[in-house]
């Protein structure tokens, strides 16, 4: 086999695997923006803040990774609740731009808290699978990213079940579509919203921890790119479609890696964004979008 063929396939693999981190963060965004109809820009940063809390616990106890993980998920859930209280509870429900701006403020705030606590330094994050590398023929496959792909499938399944199989999911969809009618049916608006934010916060925590350990470092530098890539993924997949987010994340990863290989770093993002722009223009609802433009 020629070098070119090996490389192209290797890039495909790398992109696919790295795309699973986009997928993981994109699922969260599509859940919040699409299914629940809440514009929350602070989602990615919630996950990161959770991961930082886990890291704090790690530094205090040197405990096993699972402890760090649980702590991160719990903390992210809590931060999710704080965001609901600060940016959504007392906002007018018919003007989504207000919470959008408020969550942008929250993004700045959480970022700056992290910068203050860590002096802006990158912090090593425990990575139990960080060095796992599998040889598949002439190709290399990163173990931790493979694991992340599996987790994003699991999260997808869990969220799907939550939204479409549980009473909470039913209530959530009712609240996001017809808040007044939902209330008339005896659904506690406050409680449902709080629950939704805690759960999506926890999804963020899962994403934050896994991305943190895949990168190996946590840094406030991560928050803005993750937010942007998460949004891109959610939109590309068709807002509200959870499988769409996964496909979009993987696709985005593959496009980026192939563009890097063929055009070099200076043009990687340019090519990716050009394709994105063109795609959105020709298919305004995204990959799996049913409702065109929202």
């Amino acid at each position, binding site marked *: 086999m020629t070098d070119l063929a090996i490389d192209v396939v290797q890039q495909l693999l790398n992109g696919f695997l790295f795309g699973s981190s986009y997928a993981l963060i994109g699922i969260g965004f599509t859940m919040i*923006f699409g299914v629940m109809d809440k*514009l929350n820009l602070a989602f990615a940063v919630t996950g990161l803040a959770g991961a930082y809390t886990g890291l704090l616990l790690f530094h205090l106890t040197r405990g096993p990774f699972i402890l760090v993980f649980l702590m991160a998920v719990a903390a992210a859930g809590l931060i999710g609740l704080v965001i609901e209280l*600060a*940016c959504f509870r*007392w*906002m*007018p429900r018919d*003007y989504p*731009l*207000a*919470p*959008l*701006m*408020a969550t*942008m*403020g*929250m*993004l*700045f*705030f*959480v*970022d*700056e*808290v992290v*910068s*203050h606590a860590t002096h802006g330094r990158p912090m090593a994050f425990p990575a139990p699978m960080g060095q796992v590398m599998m040889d598949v023929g002439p190709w290399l496959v990163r173990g931790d990213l493979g694991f992340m792909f599996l987790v994003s499938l699991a999260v997808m399944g869990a969220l799907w079940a939550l939204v479409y199989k549980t009473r909470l999911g039913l209530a959530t969809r009712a609240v996001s579509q017809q808040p007044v009618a939902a209330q008339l049916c005896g659904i506690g608006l406050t409680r449902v919203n709080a629950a939704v934010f805690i759960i999506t916060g926890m999804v963020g925590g899962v994403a934050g921890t896994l991305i943190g350990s895949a990168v190996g470092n946590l840094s406030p530098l991560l928050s*803005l790119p993750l937010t*942007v890539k998460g*949004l*891109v993924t959610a*939109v*590309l997949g068709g*807002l509200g479609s959870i499988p769409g987010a996964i496909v979009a994340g993987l696709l985005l990863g593959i496009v980026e890696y192939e563009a890097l290989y063929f055009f070099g770093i*200076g*043009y990687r*993002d*340019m090519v990716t*964004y*050009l394709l*994105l*722009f063109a795609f*959105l*223009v020709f298919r*305004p*609802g*995204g990959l799996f979008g049913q409702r*065109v*433009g*929202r």
Partner: protein
Amino acid sequence: MEFYFALATLFGFRILLGLSAYVVILTGQISMAQAGFYALGAYTAGAATALWGWPIVPAVLLGAIVGAVFGFLVGFPALRVRGLFLVIATLAFTEIVRMVFLNLKYTIRVGDRTIGPAAAEGFRGITYYFENGWSSLQIAGFTWLFVLAVLLAFWLMDRSRAGVVLRAVGEDELAASSVGINLTAAKVSAMTLGGLVAGLAGALYAHYATYLSQEEFGVLLASFAVAYPLIGGTGSVLGPIAGVLFFSLLIDGLRFLGDWRNLLFGVLIVAMMNVRPHGIIDVRLVRRLAALLRPAPKRAYAGD
């Protein structure tokens, strides 16, 4: 005093940037492309004075025109997408522009220095103001000439049929098109106008900063462009000004808080949105003020 003139200059192009996002928001859309237009205006106008030796006025106008042309070009395809999809599509545009400037290398020797866009190294030497001995007052005055012109134009537009059309499109597209408003024309002209004003703002920024670097024109700038009118309110052209004042107050006014300044920055945005979710100067406030300023008409009640 010198410093206040510089501050006024800074406010000037920030207000223009806010206004450029404002006009798009009137049509009910959020555009992240303003940062891209701003960058295009900045690089073009900078090149015009520093590399091609143009005088400042045509250079700034060129920057504005380039912004408008790209606004028009982006406006057409972007018509097909709405809401968050448009946000992402326009964000893609801004990132593409940024990447172009990360790769663009076009430098020449002028006297004893090498100037021009030098890819990752940035564009150095846009020193038209200083070379021509402009004082801070002149620079501020020059900037505000444009700001006032744009403000006046927008103020008049808000009062004319055009403003009503834009707001109607923003309120309800379906209703607007059913009363015969041409959605395409409204949206594309809003985008073109936004591009024009953002390009103008960038052109003025380039000469204020003397140095341009692609990393300044990313998502953050695009978010701020949108944040000015959203925080300030979209009720009138004074909204973006209020937004700029709010942010600038947070950035420069809280300096005495030292380390706490940036922590408070985010918190105050959250607090502000809770207190005034539609922005500082929203439609309701404008109506109330207008009612106060005008001699009250006789009230007629439905039951009379």
